[in-house]
């Protein structure tokens, strides 16, 4: 470390300083917010019946860990989200490949996809309940419905914007459209497939929660709607906090997948 120039040392020092300020400020904001919340409810400035408080939420969380009911709700929501996410990923890649293969098909289906994509998917949920029943299938389909159409459109767009020179190369080497797909289009679309997945995991969670609001007997969405009806604000806010953590965790998993892909390809 001694052979670093003063300029480099200064630079590194400033960088560390900058990072420290960023992390410190983040923690400060969160801690300040929680503290303010706790203090104002304790002092009776805001009504703890309506706003709950960090300590009440934490107590509620531990109670539910002890009676194990929280694990059921967490695992149900997690399972539904992951399943609908995987189905969306598989179906949208398959559909985008089909559209890429047939220009006619993509042109024919384009207006339908655009309409379905811009439709507010929460409007479909009551319909799904009638068709599929108030069960887990409905929740999973609701989760898929939010993400799938946009996902197909985005993937198709990224497939069609692959460098035409690289596709021409495949033809000059004697390949056909299938090889253009497997050797060029899919590998070069991996970054956009992953960024698509990042968007989808969040959207699937949205859809699953909408589905659970309307058609579930368990899961965080059910817990939220139930607790609001019986005015248990501790439960409600705890569920929202858990949803935040779950969303972060799922996003982090996709980030890891991305890092792995970058190393591998």
């Amino acid at each position, binding site marked *: 470390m001694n052979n670093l120039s003063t300029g480099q040392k200064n630079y590194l020092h400033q960088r560390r300083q900058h990072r420290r300020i960023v992390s410190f400020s983040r923690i400060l904001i969160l801690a300040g917010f929680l503290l303010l919340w706790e203090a104002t409810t304790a002092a009776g400035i805001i009504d703890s019946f309506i706003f709950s408080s960090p300590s009440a939420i934490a107590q509620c969380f531990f109670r539910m860990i002890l009676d194990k009911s929280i694990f059921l709700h967490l695992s149900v929501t997690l399972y539904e989200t992951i399943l609908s996410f995987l189905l969306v990923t598989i179906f949208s890649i398959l559909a985008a490949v089909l559209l890429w293969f047939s220009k006619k098909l993509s042109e024919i289906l384009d207006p339908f996809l655009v309409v379905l994509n811009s439709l507010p998917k929460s409007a479909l949920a009551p319909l799904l309940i009638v068709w599929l029943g108030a069960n887990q299938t409905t929740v999973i389909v609701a989760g898929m419905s939010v993400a799938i159409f946009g996902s197909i459109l985005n993937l198709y767009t990224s497939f069609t914007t692959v460098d035409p*020179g*690289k596709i*021409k190369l495949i033809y*000059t080497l004697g390949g056909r459209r299938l090889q253009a797909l497997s050797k060029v289009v899919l590998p070069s679309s991996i970054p956009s497939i992953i960024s698509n997945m990042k968007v989808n995991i969040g959207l699937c969670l949205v859809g699953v929660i909408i589905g659970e609001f309307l058609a579930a007997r368990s899961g965080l969405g059910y817990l939220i709607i139930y607790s609001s009806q019986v005015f248990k604000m501790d439960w409600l806010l705890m569920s929202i906090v858990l949803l935040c953590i779950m969303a972060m965790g799922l996003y982090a998993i996709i980030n890891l997948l991305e890092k792995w892909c970058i190393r591998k390809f």
Partner: protein
Amino acid sequence: MKRILELEHVHYAYHTPEGETPALTDLTFSVNAGEFLAIVGPSGCGKTTLLSLIAGLLTPEKGQIRIYQKPLSESTTNIGYMLQHDELFEWRTIYQNVLLGLEIQHMLNASTRQHAHELLETYGLKQFENARPSELSGGMRQRAALIRTLVLKPDLLLLDEPFSALDYQTRLNVGDDIGQILRKEKKTAILVTHDLSEAISLADRVIILSRRPATIHQTIPIFFDLDNDTPLNRRDTPEFKSYFKLIWKEMNEHE
């Protein structure tokens, strides 16, 4: 001399809803085995279209293209095509890039792999076999692209301005390099370019195309009496200048 390729009265046009753009009209020429033919013409005169037709990527609207006396569609002759850009895939190593054509044509086996290694070694890329394309210089990338084409053992090689994306110094070196590689491998090649000096330094014969729709304006045989006939040595001779003047005059006369 054996004729590899014959074109007879070839026509081609591009169609859009706004109308028809004729690209090539009534092209007739042939290429002998072992010959290096250069086709020059103004930008956008349909040179790339011509190579795409010969490679079978497009079908002529009128006329015949024959390879070893057989119509192109029935021919099994391997045609190598080198594009303007190297089009190396960043998600593959250089070695994997070189194998791409073999993979596509299902010819990947121990002996073709061996051949790929040998070519990489002969042309100085052995130590970059496991490198990614972005780690190579422009000249090395173009050489890797050439090896990717040569590893399929093409009987006829099409070069579509393969040096145009390189800076001038690299361009002269790579041109010299690739010219010598092709002579050594005794390849028949067709080079299209708008760079006259490149055409003269590499070719045995130069065909001058007119503006679009392209027809053959003039054919000029090129001969240099050199012991060591390389593209760079050609550039040093007085004949080089006179060929240049001649072709330059022919091209501009036509406008």
